């Protein structure tokens, strides 16, 4: 039997762990970093490299073009409706679920998570089945000249569906971990329910909300599959930014496609930065 090849470091205060020999450590780190470079860093860098390939003027022209501007406007409107709706739901659901115990709690959490396990294409399809011309409400909507599918309301609905769980699933475990002692103390001291929520609960879940909102927003602005099904692809009217990228790309207008895509890539980087800070704050809060 061969002797153990490990370098054993004496344990003082639990700071030292047994670890692998240095060459193994370096090799594994290198392999991991090369993998991440090939799959994450290069594609991200390529977005910006392609976008600025023909210079800043071409880049700005692609973004200032009327169809691009109208797609940006639609994306902002969509997120401005979808995110607050899901924020209100997330806060309500997490209060009801995390602060109380009742039968069927786990089932309810599973149902809230459901949109995550549905393909984006199906998320769009279900609204076509309800509001489309051949759908349940189709004849009614047509008679009253109301347009939902292949119009802005459909895009917003599909976006609300795909971003539905983000805020709730962040807040439920956070509020469960925080328990209800502080709220009970506030109530005993004479605060009303709403005062308790706004003065005690809200400060405690602030960073959790920011975390959920930033991820919800990223998905709302970037959703492609679901929105693609319900949009109808009417240029300048029902195209969101991701759909506009697709059109430009399919027209072989690569520089413009990547220029518009780079806006979404910027958004992704900002999202990651805010998310990292929020995650750190939540962790810090839970440790205190």
């Amino acid at each position, binding site marked *: *039997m*061969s002797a*153990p*090849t490990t370098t*054993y470091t004496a344990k003082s205060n639990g700071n030292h*762990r*047994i670890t*692998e020999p240095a060459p193994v450590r370096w090799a*594994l*780190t290198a392999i*991991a970093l090369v*993998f*991440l470079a090939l*799959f*994450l860093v290069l*594609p*991200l860098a*390529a*977005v910006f490299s392609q976008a600025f390939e023909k210079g800043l003027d071409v880049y700005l022209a692609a973004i200032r073009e009327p169809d691009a501007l109208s797609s940006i406007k639609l994306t902002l409107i969509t997120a401005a409706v979808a995110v607050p709706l899901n924020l209100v739901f997330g806060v*309500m*659901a997490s*209060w*009801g679920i995390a*602060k*109380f*115990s009742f039968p069927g709690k786990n089932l*309810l959490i599973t*149902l*809230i998570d459901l949109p995550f*396990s*549905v*393909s*984006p*294409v*199906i998320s769009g399809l279900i609204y*076509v*089945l*309800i509001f*489309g011309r*051949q*759908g349940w409400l189709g004849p009614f909507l047509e008679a009253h000249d109301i347009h939902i599918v292949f119009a802005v309301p459909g895009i917003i609905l599909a976006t609300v*569906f795909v971003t*539905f769980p983000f805020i709730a699933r962040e807040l439920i475990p956070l509020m469960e971990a925080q328990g209800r002692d502080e*709220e*009970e103390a506030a109530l005993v001291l004479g605060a009303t329910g709403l005062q*308790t929520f706004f003065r005690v609960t809200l400060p405690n879940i602030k960073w959790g909300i920011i975390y959920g909102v930033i991820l919800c927003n990223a998905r709302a602005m970037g*959703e*492609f*599959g679901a929105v693609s099904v319900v949009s109808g692809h009417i240029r300048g009217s029902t195209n969101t930014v991701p*759909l506009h*990228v*697709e059109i430009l*790309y399919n027209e072989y207008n690569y520089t413009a496609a*990547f220029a518009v*895509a780079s806006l*979404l*890539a910027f*958004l*992704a980087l900002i999202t990651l930065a805010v*998310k990292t800070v929020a995650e750190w704050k939540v962790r810090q809060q839970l440790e205190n």
Partner: protein
Amino acid sequence: MKLFRRHNNVLPGFGPTMGYTILYLSLIVLIPLSALIFTTSGLSWHDFVETVTAERVVASYKVTFGAALAAAAVNAVFGVLVAWVLVRYPFPGKRLVDALVDLPFALPTAVAGITLATVYSANGWVGRYLEPHGIKVAFTPLGIIVAMTFIGLPFVVRTVQPVIEELDAEIEEAAACLGANRWQTFRRVLFPLLAPSVLTGFALAFARAVGEYGSIIFIAGNMPMVSEITPLIIITKLEQYDYKGATAVATVMLASSFVILLIINLLQKWSRRYAE
């Protein structure tokens, strides 16, 4: 039950918040999803079976599930490696790399799709080095695997990473004291502890890859029978106003995602029990 709750909990607001939750959940998720099931039940069994077992549709299942399986396997291996390196080894820029792992969550799928197609095409940054060796990635089934690997990576890393962080140093010390080398320790002691979380991450990445659409269609080439994924079949049928066909195929996909979801829940229960 109500009395019981009152005695134990003085917090107000259960009724209104729960009422709103269930109403909103029903309006946005449950009723629309049931539309899919109702529309399918309007099809005759014969039509349904014929649609979902058509040659081109079956080929798309093979492409979708096969590629998702391959991508989840790649992610299981490299995800564990990345998680291990991030937890155990110090290196400069580690926090940046850690944050970057979530890029596939944050980057819109259409952007991921066009940039992966560009990087892995014949004259792209990576593709140009693969092409001379006869490896074509973009516009082949291999491209689908690349896109699915991209979107699935954070699932494995983020499921395994906390488990590695929690590993008790004493277990490894005990193994070392008993004469095991590092590889033996990893294979016989650590890996069995990590296995439930690796499997959960694998299943999550697989589930995400099966339903994925945006990042794949740009790199896949979308050739019927070869590189056409099932979500694209649904879109194509919709564009031809074949609502019934689209619904039938969507129902098969939805059913398979529910099965995967069930497996994931069981896996998570198992890994939680394992952790205790």
